[in-house]
């Protein structure tokens, strides 16, 4: 049940057909994890908090630095030197005190990933490197937790929603590519907003749109292109043979 203050706070989204109080209640009881609270994570965490996702766990091992401030919108000059998860928890709790924000200050590794994300209904990608993403992907596949990949560089970004057992996983593509190419602040905001939208749809029981599809955003020509993607039958993570091992 939603109380009077919740009915007022979420008034605009309660008016959306197929969302309503039932959807809001599902969000209220939902548990989302955001791994990496940088450019992507700050934006997705802000929108999930504002939307009223009941429990949000944010995971990061970094502290706020000046070069973060062009895109990591939860951090301001006064926060430099502080742990990102602590600052993010403080700001997000002020945005919506009804949401329980749990900060975890740690680096995600192959060993700790399953225990960190255990219990999540959805994991949103906010990391900045391929190695960590593949670790999260693998843990999500093993635990059957939906994982929403998002990645950016410069003015471009990509998103796909991975549902273990149904869609291709990140490892299906043997993905490659360098990081550290530079990022304009609005690029992760756009990509993370799409990740948050996919997460919300998933949490209220609607079908996410980017399952089995890869969305490519190109900020140069301001175009979104969506392409079908298929499972790799030889995938080292999600193929039936890999899952038996």
């Amino acid at each position, binding site marked *: 049940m939603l109380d009077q203050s919740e009915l007022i706070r979420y008034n605009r989204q309660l008016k959306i057909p197929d969302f309503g109080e039932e959807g809001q209640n599902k969000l209220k009881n939902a548990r989302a994890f955001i791994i*990496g609270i*940088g*450019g*992507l*994570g700050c934006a997705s965490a802000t929108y999930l908090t504002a939307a009223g996702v009941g429990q949000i766990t944010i995971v990061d091992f970094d502290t706020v630095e000046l070069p973060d401030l062009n895109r990591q919108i939860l951090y301001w000059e006064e926060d430099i030197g502080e742990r990102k998860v602590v600052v993010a928890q403080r700001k997000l709790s002020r945005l919506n005190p009804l949401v329980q924000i749990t900060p975890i200050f740690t680096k995600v590794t192959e060993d700790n990933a399953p225990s960190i994300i255990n219990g999540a209904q959805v994991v949103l*990608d*906010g*990391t*900045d*490197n*391929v190695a960590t*993403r593949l670790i999260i992907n693998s843990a999500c596949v093993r635990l059957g937790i939906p994982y929403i990949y*998002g*990645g*950016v*560089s*410069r003015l*471009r*970004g*990509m998103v796909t929603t991975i549902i273990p057992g149904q869609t*291709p996983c990140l490892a*299906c*593509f*043997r*993905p*490659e*590519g*360098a*990081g*550290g*190419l*530079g*990022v304009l602040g609005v690029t*992760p905001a756009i990509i993370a907003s799409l990740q948050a939208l996919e997460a919300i749809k998933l949490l209220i029981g609607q079908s996410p749109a980017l399952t089995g599809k*890869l969305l*490519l955003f*190109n900020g140069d020509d301001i*175009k979104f*292109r969506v*392409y*079908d*993607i*298929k*499972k*790799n*039958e*030889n995938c080292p993570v999600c193929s039936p043979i890999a899952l038996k091992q």
Partner: protein
Amino acid sequence: MPGFSELIIVVNPTQEVTREGMLSIVMPWLYAPWPHAREKGIIETEIDGDTLRALLAELSARYKAANVDFQPVNPTTNDLDFDYDVFVNGKNYVALAHGLDAKLKDGDTVKVKMLWRWDG
């Protein structure tokens, strides 16, 4: 021929290049989206010129006509776009004597890899 996230082009192959033997094509939109290739499952293309750059330009034009974003050579910089890596016979194009203007010969294999995005 794309197997996973790669497009592999064989210059003047002695045999037809087909989908046969591929366990799965995870990025099917890269697989020759022009109509006759879809029907036959075979990529055939001729290029005006004999360089790597000419090949990539021809492929870009074909993909563009099929409304697929595939443009390895950035038209503004005239250099390889950071979305892609290109290999000729397994060697990165930057290691070739003439880079993108390296001449291709019969039997050469050109591999184009689409790169993913990892910053956050």
